[in-house]
């Protein structure tokens, strides 16, 4: 089935947050600091205030107070992620481009001009932004300090660091640089105070409810007084998962000038204001027996965070459960620097961790003289070795077999540099990905109208995966109604609650609520026909009825048949409305371990003289439960693979540490991959349901689409060249 909103998107009819026009709307531009640490000595806003069209210049001395800011829960402790930088509360500078003022004017151009006129003098302090020079300052996250059993805490299964005393071992360090989400759509918000205690925001966000709650708390107004509209989101990859200072800046500005205010970040500001995948250092030690059984893994990681917020991610989770190893040690630390706070970026943590773990697997296999696919199969585990639980479902072996056949894995030679295409060296590599098959709680309202159409509503978002399309299909299948008669509305806080669109959980979460709503509708329709004066449906139950093409019929005697529309007419009902909530069964989660899996295969060619790298073929295979829509699921896999190509070969932010300021902050200097970097990418699905996870049998795809891609490419480059590159991105200069 095609995307339900495909036409709207390609014709420009889809409306994104910055595209709304409200009467009397003003425009705001954020001004950032030019130092990384210190305080504002003086702020000259006179010229900006006097510039034509300027309505206000807000900063720490005059900005409206945010009443909720006073309530920091534990003022003496570092804030966990999710409590963003408090805007304009004092003159302190925590990172380069720290917001120091917001300029509001009647037009965007005037606001942009006046923003350039704001000048600050600083008391500069010595900043620390260089990860490598500060690793000694890394510490155990507070959550793990308080509770050693916390998933971020140190983990030992069997003997600690057991690989060290083994004869056959590897020990390697891996580095990934800071990477930026860079969705096509810039972060933007329109803030509109419809009354003194009533706020509406048209906001780019993945979290309708999260945004609503955050601003209600900030401004101490009832939750229902905050309306969040995010009908379309032009990609986000995680940077719309919590609220950011620019959103508060727009809300403050709207309050101050008493007009709706639009604020859209510049592409440059996307590098400092809305998070990133943090720079990470990792070390893996691994040992194995001669016949390929892993005996021990130690995986350590340090991830970058800011000085004012503790950002953590599950970098090491997969190392604990992916392979059979009896001895596993993991240690996770975070390193605060004078930079802005990171945020989850597609495959958060796991994509970082998989680069190290799956590269190390390849290194170990090479030491053993073993095919890396065979090595993984030998160490495949049929139960979760961390939790000692069975998997809900796991079809990773099937996915591996599909992928190996499609890429032509048999062409791979154990010894690097053996396969050539003219002058070019050809190599094959693989990498495995996994991510928790998450499911949350969501509510869906479903209204069957007397014309036989169904409208469903829920406050989820669609950041691109095709949520609306998938929900329509789930409803079509469950209710027996053609998809063209179904509409799924999302992206508004007026709809029943759904969690943020993150963690690959939307289809499992909201799809289950759609399933429940359809079941409820079927139940209601059944009661209606069973009670009909016409006795042809006598004794009808949901089980003995057939729901198909918008009709209900008795399975045993199909001549008794009524359309949904006629049933409503008979009852004299204009519509039939149900609202259903779906919650995962907690007891099942104690009995089973639930994960999605992917395996990626890459074929690369490397030029031995110039270091040029071409990814010539990629096959990404997933065990993601039932595939609702092959097209949108395939898009997810291909998009993730392209993201992984970026991670492996092109993406990485560079900072000049003398200034603590990025030098790569536009799309010309920060290299997201382009079409010329991406080959034809095949995506294959095992497509077997996981009915323990949810009634639709789905498991998430978004994260596993990228997790494991970067090591697949790095491993293929090793197979082509014999060069093991452990610091991303792998650019031509590293291969000559």
């Amino acid at each position, binding site marked *: 089935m095609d995307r339900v909103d495909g036409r709207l998107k390609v014709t420009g009819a889809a409306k994104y947050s910055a595209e709304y026009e409200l009467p009397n709307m003003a425009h705001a531009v954020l001004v950032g600091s030019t130092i990384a640490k210190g305080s504002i000595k003086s702020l000259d806003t006179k010229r900006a205030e006097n510039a034509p069209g300027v309505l206000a210049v807000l900063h720490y001395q005059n900005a409206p107070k945010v009443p909720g800011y006073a309530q920091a829960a534990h003022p003496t402790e570092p804030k966990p992620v999710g409590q963003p930088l408090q805007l304009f509360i004092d003159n302190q500078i925590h990172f380069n481009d720290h917001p120091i003022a917001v300029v509001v004017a009647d037009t965007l151009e005037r606001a942009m001009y006046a923003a350039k006129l704001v000048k600050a003098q600083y008391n500069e302090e010595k900043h620390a932004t260089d990860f490598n020079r500060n690793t000694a300052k890394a510490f155990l996250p507070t959550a793990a300090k308080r509770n050693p059993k916390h998933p971020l805490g140190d983990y030992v299964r069997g003997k600690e660091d057991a690989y060290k005393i083994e004869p056959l071992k590897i020990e390697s360090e891996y580095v990934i640089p800071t990477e930026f989400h860079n969705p096509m759509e810039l972060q933007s918000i329109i803030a509109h105070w419809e009354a003194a205690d009533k706020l509406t925001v048209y906001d780019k966000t993945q979290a309708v409810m999260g945004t609503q709650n955050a601003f209600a708390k900030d401004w101490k107004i009832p939750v229902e007084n905050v309306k969040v509209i995010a009908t379309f989101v032009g990609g986000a990859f995680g940077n719309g998962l919590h609220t950011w200072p620019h959103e508060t800046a727009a809300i403050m500005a709207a309050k101050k000038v008493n007009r709706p205010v639009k604020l859209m970040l510049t592409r440059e500001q996307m590098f400092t204001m809305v998070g990133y995948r943090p720079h990470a250092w990792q070390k893996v030690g691994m040992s194995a027996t001669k016949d390929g059984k892993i005996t021990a893994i130690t995986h350590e990681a340090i991830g970058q965070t800011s000085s004012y917020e503790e950002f953590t991610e599950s970098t090491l989770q997969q190392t604990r459960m992916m392979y059979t190893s009896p001895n596993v040690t993991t240690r996770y630390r975070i390193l605060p620097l004078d930079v802005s706070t990171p945020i989850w970026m597609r495959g958060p943590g796991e994509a970082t961790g998989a680069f190290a773990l799956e590269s190390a697997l390849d290194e170990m296999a090479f030491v053993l003289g073993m095919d890396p696919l065979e090595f993984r199969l030998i160490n495949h585990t049929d139960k979760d070795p961390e939790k000692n639980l069975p998997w809900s479902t796991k079809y990773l072996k099937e996915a591996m077999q599909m992928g190996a056949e499609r890429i032509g894995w048999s062409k791979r030679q154990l010894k690097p540099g053996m396969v050539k295409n003219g002058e070019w060296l050809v190599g094959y590599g693989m990498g495995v990905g996994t991510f928790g098959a998450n499911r949350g709680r969501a509510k869906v309202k479903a209204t069957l109208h007397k014309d036989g159409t169904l409208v469903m509503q829920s406050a989820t978002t669609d950041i691109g995966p095709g949520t609306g399309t998938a929900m329509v299909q789930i409803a079509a299948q469950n209710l027996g109604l053609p998809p063209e008669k179904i509409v799924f509305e999302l992206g508004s806080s007026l709809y029943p609650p759904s969690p943020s669109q993150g963690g690959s959980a939307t289809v499992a979460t909201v799809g289950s609520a759609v399933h429940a709503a359809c079941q409820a509708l079927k139940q209601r329709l059944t009661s209606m026909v069973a009670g009909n004066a016409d006795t042809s449906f006598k004794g009808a139950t949901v089980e003995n009825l057939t729901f198909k093409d918008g009709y209900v019929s008795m399975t045993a005697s199909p001549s008794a048949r009524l359309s949904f529309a006629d049933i409503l007419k008979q009852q004299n009902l204009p519509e039939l409305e149900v609202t259903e909530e779906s919650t995962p069964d907690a007891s099942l989660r104690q009995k089973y371990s639930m994960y999605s899996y992917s395996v990626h295969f890459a074929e690369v060619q490397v030029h031995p*003289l110039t270091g040029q790298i071409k990814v010539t073929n990629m096959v990404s295979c997933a065990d993601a439960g039932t595939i609702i829509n092959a097209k949108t699921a395939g898009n997810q896999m291909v998009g993730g693979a392209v993201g992984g190509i970026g991670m492996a070969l092109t993406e990485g932010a560079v900072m*000049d540490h003398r200034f603590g*300021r990025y*030098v790569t902050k536009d799309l*010309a200097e920060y290299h997201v991959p382009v079409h010329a970097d991406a080959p034809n990418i095949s995506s294959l699905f095992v497509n077997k349901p996981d009915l323990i996870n949810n009634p639709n049998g789905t498991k998430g795809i978004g994260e596993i689409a990228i997790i494991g891609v970067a090591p697949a490419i790095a491993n293929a480059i090793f197979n082509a060249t014999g060069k093991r590159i452990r610091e991303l991105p792998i650019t031509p200069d590293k291969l000559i």
Partner: protein
Amino acid sequence: MIQFQYVKPSKPKAAIDTVAKDQSAVFIAGGTNLVDLMKRGVMNPEKLVDINKLPLRKIERENGNVRIGALALNGAVAEDKLVLEKHPLLAQALNAGASAQLRNMATVGGNMMQRVRCPYFYDTAMPCNKREPGTGCGALEGYNRMHAIFGHSDKCIAVNPSDMNVALVALDAVVLVSGPKGDRKIPFAEFHRLPGDTPQIHTNLQQGELIMAVDVPENPYTKNVNYLKIRDRNSYAFALVSVAAALDLDGSTIKSARLAMGGVAHKPWRLNEAEQFLAGKPATEATFRQAAQLAMRGAKAFEHNKFKLTLGPNTIVQALKNASGVA
């Protein structure tokens, strides 16, 4: 809003006079670089003289040259039959630059005039002698992976970002210029400058001088040519190193060669010594390697661009191999 005047004359003389009289006026053609620089506050001209109405788009044979009008679009030149026949090296270089969208906006004259892509030049919060003389070179002790290994000074180590320029310098192109004091011809190798003590001056054009056309003399380099660009991604990225190589072969003997590099200096970098060495030699990888070593004499790298000392000669060898067909 930053106010500037905008005029669109239809006669070259009017355009030239306007800019000649006004130090704060600049010509604008495709605008693919200038508009970005204005948005960032790097360039703040008070008057834009749009030259798009001037009749400077033709590509024609003229007196033993292929004459390319200053307003010919990069994309159009790359696909032009005459260019493909007489100067395939130029077509290859043009297609290696930017993206299809940019090539369809950018002009040949504008491409010659594009400014450096050094991040310190672009960020007004950072030091840059080119943007603000006397503030220092941010790249010298900063991030200099993309920077020069030839002809730099302690005032500036940025590189000319153009691909087209590398081919044009190799092909002995001549720039036809018209100015307040009349017309003149500038050999391509003398059009761009080394930074020296005045990196803020980026070409040898005088105020008000307008590029009318570029002449590329017809030559024997119509077959054995290669423009090889090594970059961090396969499109829309500036060169780490690029090489324009052209050979006139007699069997397997090199009669003459043209060779230039991009991504290594503040101007497109012609390799005269290596060219002379190649003349009369057999077209073998060993010969190419010796030429490449000659070409790298005097190269000096910085903290992050030392790889260019290896990638440079390797790319020369590979471009010569590609041009000659020597496997």
